[in-house]
């Protein structure tokens, strides 16, 4: 019996040691990862019984891993800010214009030859490129263009993005005119959104007639043709031989969906995949050190913030001293280090860094626990108070929110942190059912107006769009936002956004925290792969490096 005990104990010990051993070698995986690519492939191939006989030299399929699956590939059927359908759709469909490779502030024609604004800025006349063919061989016509734009405008998802666009109409055999409700200079950026992809009217109507789900059987004019969509696993595309811009270097693309970011990072390291979008900040340092992998990080198009509901159930948050105390209690760098593994940029004004209107020299009230406590006491809460904070369940939100929870505890504020399922969170935000939230806002195009209009204008405070999340009803803020929208002089606009940032800081409606990265990780033999803040990755720009 004694022996029996000993043997079990021994088992337990050796099991523990086994795990320690695996863990230990896990840390040194960098050296393992640096073995050359062909070797990796060869190993995988032998274990797979030669199922995949292709080596790197005649590699023609790009495996693009992303951590979520699009729900539909019908243009405009998904949220316009959703980067997952964007990554697949821009390969299959094309828009009138696209972002220039590696320069998101410049647009270049894609399905048009040129365009012209009317004097009053209310009409844009597009000369449509001729001789472009859809994947089924049909020629793209001006009717298809106008139809696609009008169809997009009618989609629920698109209305928020494009409320300034009235409609599109055919002028003649080669021209389509887009009519606006009011002049809006960044309108071209909106037309780049894949929601405004050009589809074949004939094919779409045919799908509707015979009950085919267009969103699962997409067809456009893009560099790649749709091949198959295996639910939950992958979407496969093949090069379009008749593409109007010539041949593409990479012949096949497989988008593969892997929900677990750690597993997906390992797949990239072991050479199972070529591209990975959706890396977790924990894996970034390791991938950066790997010589076989290029980590292409850019600042993302939006920033994370705390919104304090100034018109909500918590009376304390109507007191600007309480809000200012919270503003002084957050240590942004600490939130980035603890919540995002040090990946990110401190953000102090309510505008994403890198877009027009961002205030580089602007600083919010500095981190000062004692001053914050004093303010809180002054406001009538010497013994602290409890506020509820809601945030979506992804670790990008929940981990920084936990650091904030801890920082506020230091000044005596107990944060009742509710990490919520995304749908429930969106519902509560829509219904204004929260005391405070930790959330994110992005810009669809690089201009401050796209963000501050939504955040500060009182028209979004109580009805309609749920974007004025602090529920601000301030004539002063409204005036600044409207002035910024109409002003044409860049210097004057900069000044307006500076004033707005100061106004926000004085009132501490929103507490901007950090800007994260948008990262694409690529095996180093993928040429020209680039980072993009809004995930506009045109695979047609890329190629394989052949040694």
């Amino acid at each position, binding site marked *: 019996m004694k022996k029996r005990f000993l043997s*079990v104990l021994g088992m337990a010990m050796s099991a523990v040691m086994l795990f320690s051993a695996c863990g230990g070698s896990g840390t040194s*995986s960098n050296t393992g990862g640096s073995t050359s690519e062909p070797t990796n492939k060869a190993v995988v191939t032998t274990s797979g019984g030669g199922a995949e006989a292709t080596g790197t030299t005649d590699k023609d399929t790009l495996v693009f891993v992303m951590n979520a699956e699009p729900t539909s590939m019908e243009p405009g059927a998904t949220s316009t800010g959703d980067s997952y359908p964007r990554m697949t759709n821009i390969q299959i469909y094309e828009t009138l214009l696209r972002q220039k490779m590696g320069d998101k502030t410049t647009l270049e024609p894609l399905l048009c030859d040129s365009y012209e604004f009317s004097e009053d800025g209310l009409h844009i006349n597009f000369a449509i490129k001729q001789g472009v063919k859809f994947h089924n061989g049909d020629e793209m016509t001006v009717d298809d263009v106008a139809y696609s734009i009008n169809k997009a405008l009618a989609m629920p998802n698109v209305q928020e993005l494009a409320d300034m666009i009235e409609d599109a109409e055919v002028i003649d055999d080669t021209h389509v005119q887009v009519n606006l409700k009011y002049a809006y200079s960044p309108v071209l950026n909106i037309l780049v959104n894949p929601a405004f992809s050009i589809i074949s009217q004939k094919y779409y109507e045919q799908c509707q007639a015979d009950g085919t789900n267009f969103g*699962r059987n997409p067809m456009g004019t893009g560099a790649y043709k749709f091949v198959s969509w295996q639910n939950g696993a992958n979407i496969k595309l093949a090069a379009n031989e008749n593409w109007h811009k010539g041949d593409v270097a990479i012949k096949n693309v497989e988008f593969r*969906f892997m929900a677990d970011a750690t597993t997906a990072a390992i797949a990239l390291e072991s050479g199972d995949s070529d591209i990975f979008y959706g890396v977790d900040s924990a894996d970034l340092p390791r991938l950066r050190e790997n010589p076989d992998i290029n980590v292409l990080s850019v600042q993302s198009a939006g920033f994370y913030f705390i919104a304090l509901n100034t018109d909500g159930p918590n009376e304390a948050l109507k007191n600007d001293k309480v809000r200012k105390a919270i503003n002084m209690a957050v240590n942004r760098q600490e939130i980035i280090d603890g919540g995002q593994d040090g990946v990110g940029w401190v953000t102090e004004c309510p505008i994403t860094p890198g877009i027009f209107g961002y205030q580089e020299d602007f600083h919010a009230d500095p981190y000062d626990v004692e001053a914050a406590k004093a303010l809180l006491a002054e406001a009538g809460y010497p013994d602290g108070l409890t506020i509820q904070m809601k945030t979506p369940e992804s670790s990008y939100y929940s981990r920084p929110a936990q650091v904030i929870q801890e920082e506020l505890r230091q000044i005596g504020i107990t944060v009742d942190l509710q990490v919520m399922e995304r749908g*429930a969170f969106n*519902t509560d935000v*829509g219904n204004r059912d929260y005391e405070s939230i930790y959330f994110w806002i992005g810009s669809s195009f690089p201009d401050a107006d796209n963000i501050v209009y939504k955040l500060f204008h009182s028209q979004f405070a109580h009805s*309609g769009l749920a974007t004025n999340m602090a529920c601000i009803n301030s004539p002063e803020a409204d005036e600044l936002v409207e002035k910024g929208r109409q002003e044409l002089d860049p210097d004057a606009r900069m000044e307006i956004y500076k004033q707005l940032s100061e106004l926000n800081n004085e009132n501490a409606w929103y507490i901007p925290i950090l800007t994260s990265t948008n990262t694409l990780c690529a095996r180093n033999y993928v040429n020209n792969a680039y980072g993009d803040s809004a995930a506009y990755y045109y695979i047609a720009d890329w190629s394989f490096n052949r040694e």
Partner: protein
Amino acid sequence: MHKYVIKRLLMLIPVILGITFILYSIMTLTPGDPVRMILGDGATDEAVEQMREELGLNKGFFEGYVDYLKDAAHGDFGKSYRTREPVFNEVFARFPNTLKLASSAIAISIILGVLVGIIQAVHQYSILDNIISGITLICTSIPDFWFGLILIIIFCVNLKLLPASGSDHWYNYVLPAITASMGYTAGTIRLTRSSMLEVIRSDYIRTARAKGTDERTITYRHALKNALLPVVTLIGINLGWQLGGTIIVEQIFAIPGIGTLMIGAVRSKDIPLLMASVTFVAVLSSLINLGTDILYAYIDPRIKAEYSK
């Protein structure tokens, strides 16, 4: 026997009704709006309303459920809110992957479980017996996601023997199947061992021994046959559970199976998809259990006699 089978099949009807009603109630009566989920941040109230109309979400609680049943009776189980695909298209697209995973996990648990269980029973109280008991005990106590991650580190990262993800080739299923089978293998080992020991002590084995039959023949000819009876039931139950129980393993290894589908459906409040996938799994495992019972009756005449009563 036939009567019994028909009775069991008829019992599936209340099960289906019950499951759909339970899930429908949970999903409808709790906070969270599938439409806000699909439309994303900053959807206008009008857009939300428009889509609610499209998806038929404006009906009352009971009206919605009754309409669902009516359509289901005609074979229309609805379309997924998110993908707009008929729900069973989604389920059948995912099912083969789960089936592959579950059946290979079960195969491992049968082969390894029965083999090790016999060895243990034959060598009762030996050091080997104790070591195996220790391992099986620990195997039942290790959370599967932990085990799976450790396997990934060993085999994918360090040894580079197997890919960490994918579902196209047989070798994609090696690690997931091992992970998923761990608990079941341990269960099968324990059951085989104890039922082997019980049989070995029974009178007819004693008789065989007394007659001078050699140990090998006793173990494999006489004892094993009877000892495997309870194991058959366990396998049936396990397979049923596996079909719905590989959720976490599917998550780790990124296998697009039913489990991943169900989690996605829960998260996005995709009610028709959730009801269809859970009902499908439940009905399938009920059928497997029924199949096991029938099989059991054929192997063991005593049970068959019981059914025909």
